[in-house]
């Protein structure tokens, strides 16, 4: 069945229909009379013509060429690919949520606004922040919102000199890109060998042109930034603000909070820590939270409560403005809210404990077979620097591709950039010990295969629906759409 290899356009046949409309029944309007031909489409719409059962079978077959968390272990570092509880989907599909028009009068959407208000409060408590806007559509937009807030804050104080953001070289690519889009210049600082902030480098970079520092903690190496209190102090003394990228929040819930570490602004990825599905690349949600002094700058609208009534507050003169239409990715908020209600305080604390335990267990078992650059207790993920045998002809990519033959989604590879041949493993708390043990066995077996039979790795995968793809050809002469033959 995985041999199915057709595009929806290729099963099309003239005259087939997949959908019936209600009759129009309006007989006294002639569109030809009211909309002149100069405003009308003159070219054919090239779309498929298929019946409903054909379409259903097509996309079912297509879906089977995919690997998701429900299919198997997905230890994709920095992405927190945990199980997506099914009740979350049911709650988000309730018609009284999914069929709400975003421009409805507030009195008809009090339940939705109450949910948003409650969720903001929960997110504030989890992160030790004072206020949240649920508007950003994804992590990268949350970052952008946070940086705009920092800029607006400085400008409101009449300080226009602060045009630079410090980003460590271990950061995710969206960090420097977001800083650029927010109109900042990026000052990249070199991290220490173990992926931490180099305090001397930080001191050297700090001055009155620095608007802030972007940081993940735990770092992208999965290690807790032990000097965080001093870092926060240094940045604040220099007049800067501290930005927390919540990508790694899954490690610390119930243990410590970005707000208590000294961060002024944070974003979370609800699709990571709070189990909303990754969707094949979204939709996510990237709420942005702040300390009191930054609250006026939050993107609008913000949900507020006046007496017993919930409102969407758009009257926020110092707000950075809107980042998208309407009220955020509400459907995702419903899922995250459902999850937090399910887990409660004890559950979320347990989540981080088990996420960290699982990561350390794999790290301990693999360090004899792969290079572990920093051998210490990690948090929810860890980074290997490729195969232990430096003379191996096999690359990190080969290891990843061989994992496919064994039925695993590979870890994140070649990130963070500061670790050569990086293999970044994040098991999450929703995996069983049996799964971890089986994965460990396969990883060890692959490291042996690399020595004994490297071709097995280099030719991998051989059991998937396609083998390795020609990416050079894809980029050199791009074919980005299907063309009628």
């Amino acid at each position: 069945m995985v041999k199915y290899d057709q595009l929806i356009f290729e099963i099309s046949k003239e005259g087939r229909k997949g959908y019936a409309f209600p009759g129009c029944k309006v007989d006294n309007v002639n569109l030809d009379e009211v909309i002149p031909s100069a405003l009308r489409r003159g070219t054919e719409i090239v779309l498929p013509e298929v019946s409903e059962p054909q379409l259903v079978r097509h996309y079912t077959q297509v879906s089977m060429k995919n690997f998701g968390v429900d299919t198997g272990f997905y230890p994709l570092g920095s992405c927190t690919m945990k199980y997506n509880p099914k009740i979350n989907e049911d709650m988000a599909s309730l018609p009284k949520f999914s069929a709400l028009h975003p421009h409805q009068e507030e009195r008809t959407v009090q339940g939705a606004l109450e949910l948003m208000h409650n969720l903001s409060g929960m997110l504030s408590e989890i992160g030790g922040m004072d206020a949240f806007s649920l508007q950003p559509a994804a992590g990268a937009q949350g970052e952008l919102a946070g940086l705009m807030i920092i800029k607006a804050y400085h400008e409101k104080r009449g300080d226009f000199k602060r045009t630079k953001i410090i980003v460590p070289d271990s950061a995710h690519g969206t960090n420097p890109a977001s800083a650029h889009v927010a109109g900042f210049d990026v000052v990249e600082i070199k991290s220490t060998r173990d992926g931490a902030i180099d305090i001397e480098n930080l001191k050297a970079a700090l001055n009155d042109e620095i608007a802030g520092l972007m940081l993940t903690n735990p770092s992208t190496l999965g290690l807790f930034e032990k000097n965080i209190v001093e870092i926060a102090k240094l940045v604040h003394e220099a007049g800067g603000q501290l930005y927390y990228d919540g990508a790694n929040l899954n490690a610390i819930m119930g243990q410590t909070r970005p707000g208590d570490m000294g961060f002024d602004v944070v974003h979370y990825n609800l699709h990571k820590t709070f189990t909303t599905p990754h969707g094949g690349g979204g939709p996510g949600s990237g709420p942005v939270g702040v300390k009191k002094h930054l609250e006026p700058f939050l993107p609008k609208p913000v949900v507020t409560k006046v007496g017993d009534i919930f409102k969407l507050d758009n009257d926020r003169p110092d707000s950075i403005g809107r980042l998208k239409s309407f009220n955020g990715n509400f459907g995702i908020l419903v899922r995250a809210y459902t999850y937090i209600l399910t887990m409660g305080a004890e559950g979320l604390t347990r989540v981080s404990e088990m996420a960290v335990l699982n990561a350390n267990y794999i790290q301990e078992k693999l360090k004899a077979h792969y290079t572990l650059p920093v051998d210490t207790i990690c948090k929810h993920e860890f980074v290997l620097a490729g195969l232990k045998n430096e003379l191996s002809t096999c690359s990190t990519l080969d290891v990843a591709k061989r994992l496919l033959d064994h039925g695993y989604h590979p870890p994140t590879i070649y990130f963070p950039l500061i670790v050569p041949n990086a293999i970044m493993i994040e098991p999450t708390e929703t995996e069983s010990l049996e799964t971890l043990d089986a994965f460990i066995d396969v990883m060890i077996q692959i490291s042996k295969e690399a020595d004994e039979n490297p071709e097995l790795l280099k030719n991998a995968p051989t059991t998937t629906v396609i083998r390795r793809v020609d990416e050079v050809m894809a980029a050199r002469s791009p074919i980005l759409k299907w063309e009628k033959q």
Partner: protein
Amino acid sequence: MRFPYIPNTKQDEEKMLKVLGLDSVDRLFDDIPESIKLGRRLNLDVPRSESEVSKMVKHLANKNLSTEELVCFRGAGAYDHAIPSVVHHLISRSEFYTAYTPYQPEISQGTLQAIFEYQTMIANITGMNVANASMYDGASATAEAAMLASANQKGDTILISETVNPEIRDVVKTYMRFYNVKVVEVPSKDGLTDMDALRETASADTVGVIIQTPNFFGNIEDCTEAVEIAHENKALFIMNVDPISLGLLKTPGEYGADIAVGEGQVLGNSLNFGGPYLGFMASSTKQMRKLPGRIVGQTVDLDGKRAFTLTLQAREQHIRREKATSNICSNQALNALAATIYMGLLGKEGMAEVAEQSATKAYYAKQELIKTGKFRSVHDAPFFREFVLETDIDIEDLNKQLADKGFLGGYNLGKDYPSDKNRVLFCVTEKRTKDEIDCLVKAMEEITW
């Protein structure tokens, strides 16, 4: 305490701790300095069972009145089109929704092929050469198009018509304020962009001209002159279009637009109180390598078999970092899948029919509402699915009375345009039956004016 989503048993935990040489899970957090340890229970509720949670969430849901109870005549950026059942069923296949960005093409051909089909459909419906794999929503896609223009064209000013949806203009202004690009609004005349004003405003400093059609008032803009003006000033012409309307109306490709963007919610995505939706972006071949976001291309695997993969990644943030002109990463893949399924199911005839029925019923509703004698037409321009009427009653009051009769009335334009007090923007999609329109008209006759 045990949690259904966490498989480790107490014995598992002990076994793992033993391997690590630790006596307790707490030791795993010894690297966190004492001074910043929480040291208390998170102030959240206790864990709850599925049935308890379901009850709590439904309790909130039941405080809402949705478009299932209120017959919806409101649009203004989000539209109540019919959504075929198969859309929800297919996007609920967990091979799709529990996967992530298709970094490993060998086990992600499902998502990659679906995006390739999506790109084809968006390119074809807009008449553009290429499309990317989706954006957050129509508003931010418009802002991203403005960023693209600013990064690549000479000048420092974006021109945007006053007839563009106010929320889209707000988003463009937010992005441009921080990107240090000026935004100048081009005034409207009789519900359409004032082309003379556009010609006067455009200059060598203009990097992009943004027009929306059908515009916020539902009126169809003739973009012929706007394209000329943009190109004479070496600016990009950015057209924000409604994809449903393109079953009937002249496409960005036919106008010669450089970039087409828009809100894709109408393509099989639920109203969801405003999100998640999807934005789309399509362009001429010339702009292809400047597009933000993911793009999927066709190639072959080692055996020469057709395969799909993420491509042209040299444009993206993970490669370019601070030199990237967009920071967009994951966005709305599952919504794009819904759009693909929707367009695939409706096909070429269905996409034309949904457009024609929406327009026909909108024209009918307008004429019938005017016949009541309580409304006056405001614009004479051809429109698509929405139209503006003026009345003597306060619109909030009108809508309150309509809600009592089971209708979600039109959008109150006075909220955005102070000069448009007592003006209301009605929306009619193909989903509204003639009977429902007649009932709305009848309800208007009963309302106290």
